[in-house]
């Protein structure tokens, strides 16, 4: 949920934009990460795991745990929590392809 107010102060956001998440249009605002925009749209599962296809969502939000890996404009294994959302981006959940390997990341 996007807050209108934080610690008694109004949160100001400039004009929003959209990007694609699978088949969905997601609204985001400048300063938001892909993770933030997805969570604000109530999307919490960002990928499924390679071996057991279990759902995974955010864990650390600071780029340490690599749980929130998504495919951004064809680039695999980008961390949603440290990648700024941008207009027109095409973001897909990671783990749909077999080649999700850290040594094959490009």
């Amino acid at each position, binding site marked *: *949920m*996007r*807050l209108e107010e*934080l*610690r*008694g*102060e*109004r*949160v*100001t*956001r400039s004009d929003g934009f959209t990007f694609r998440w699978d088949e969905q249009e997601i609204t985001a605002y400048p*300063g*938001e*990460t892909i*993770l*933030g925009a997805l*969570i*604000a749209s109530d999307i*919490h*599962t*960002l990928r499924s*795991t*390679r*071996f*057991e296809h*279990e*759902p*995974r*969502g*955010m*864990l*650390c*939000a*600071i*780029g*340490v*745990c*690599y*749980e929130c*890996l998504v495919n951004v404009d064809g680039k695999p*294994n980008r961390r949603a*929590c*440290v990648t*700024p959302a941008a207009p027109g981006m095409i973001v897909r959940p990671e783990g749909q392809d077999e080649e999700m390997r*850290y*040594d*094959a*990341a*490009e």
Partner: protein
Amino acid sequence: MTRPNNPADGEAQPRIVVIGGGPAGMAACNALLQNDLPVTLIDESNGLGGQYYKRFTAAADLSRGTEIDELRESGAEQAGRLDDPRVTYLPNTLVWGIFPERRLALYVDDRVELMQADALLLAGGAVERIAAFPGWTLPGVMTAGGAQTLLAREGILVGKRFLLTGTGPLLLEIALEIAEAGGEIVAVVEGSSLSAPVRQLRKFVTQTRRMRQAFDYHRELRRRKIPLLSQHMIVAAHGDDHVSDAVVARIDGDWQPISGSEQRFPVDTICLHYGFAASTELAHLAGATTAFDQRYGGWYVAHDDGMRTSASDVYVAGQTSGIGGADLAEATGRLAGLSIAHDLGQLPVDRYTGLAVDARREIDRGRQFAEMLNTTYTAGPGVNEPVTSETLICRCEEVRAAQVDAALAEGALDLNDVKRLTRCGMGFCQGRICSQVLVPYIAQKSGRSPQEIGQFHPRPPIKPVPLGALATMPDPESVFGSPEPGAAEAAAGHH
């Protein structure tokens, strides 16, 4: 902004590199600037302040005169002082390797660059500790710091009904921030007993700000009617593709769950926080020795009383030199900056000694308080009791506890044996998460000490670097010169 690599300019100034732009790194840079030394500041994120000051950046144009505002201003002021032509600031830059003679490998803008550091300060901070239990990989289970980051950085609340669990004062702080933002807190679940820290706090009556903070948190929790369960911990999370409830049990002094005491809470978000672990990977690569001491929060980078590590011209500051608060981090950063200036001949011994005494006094004060927190708020041996053979230990490589048990049965003695036999720690996060779980797990199963279990041996790249970026790496000789000075001339002489 100056380009990081320019070996041809032949500048006489040694290159001082600070890794990490949090409280410690910023304080070190300021100390260096005061001694008229230029500095290169590298930070993995897009802004200064580290995880500490970044919590206070939201809605920065408004103020209401609270302590949070003071902290926000203090962070902004320190960052502002680094807006100086003598500072080469490299944001969004990952140091993924350190090779002999402090040769750094950087990853920025999908490129790899190399840089020589003549003096190097490691101030990369810490990671939040978590614990494993059945269901801990479900979406909706996250670190408390992660929920706080989204709240402060983006003004986004990650859920509606929260349970926070683990140990330490940060749990209370984050619970109150979430409650203030409109989240419902069904419980704050603290593993330690409430009386232990209160008894300890009497030693710190002179540290009024900290005393006030501790009491304010408790008063505010009561005012908001948020249940605080002490000597309890989470034993399971349930849900299909998202967490739907948390099971909490009472624990004894060793954190062993007491059977029959389980309570179930319907929630959509579980926030975990078990303290912090120093990020020591770069220190290992730089050849600096690490040490284990619970009073320092576990493993940390060993240093002398001037923040010098065992590796030549490599210094350490902040959480990486021992877990403590931001005040302590700043003091260690300042001392490290002074030591670098002194060791480079820029700060005469009499002035250095005087300034260092002041910094050390502040460090001693901060360290005493940090030691109290690090020993009071630490998970006991029973923390892994809820783990079953099916529970994932390594989330990246999907290694279950049964596989770790098998490795131990095969004779694995330490963390690196378990890594070789199970792939724990070989995935994307390079063991940053599973080591938090594995060390107490192996200790409990084998009776060995954390020192014997050791740390993962980090190898470059310490975080994933795409192959395409590695292909852009410049020729090391073009950056660092010939491997042995004079070798090229000697070879030329033979022709």
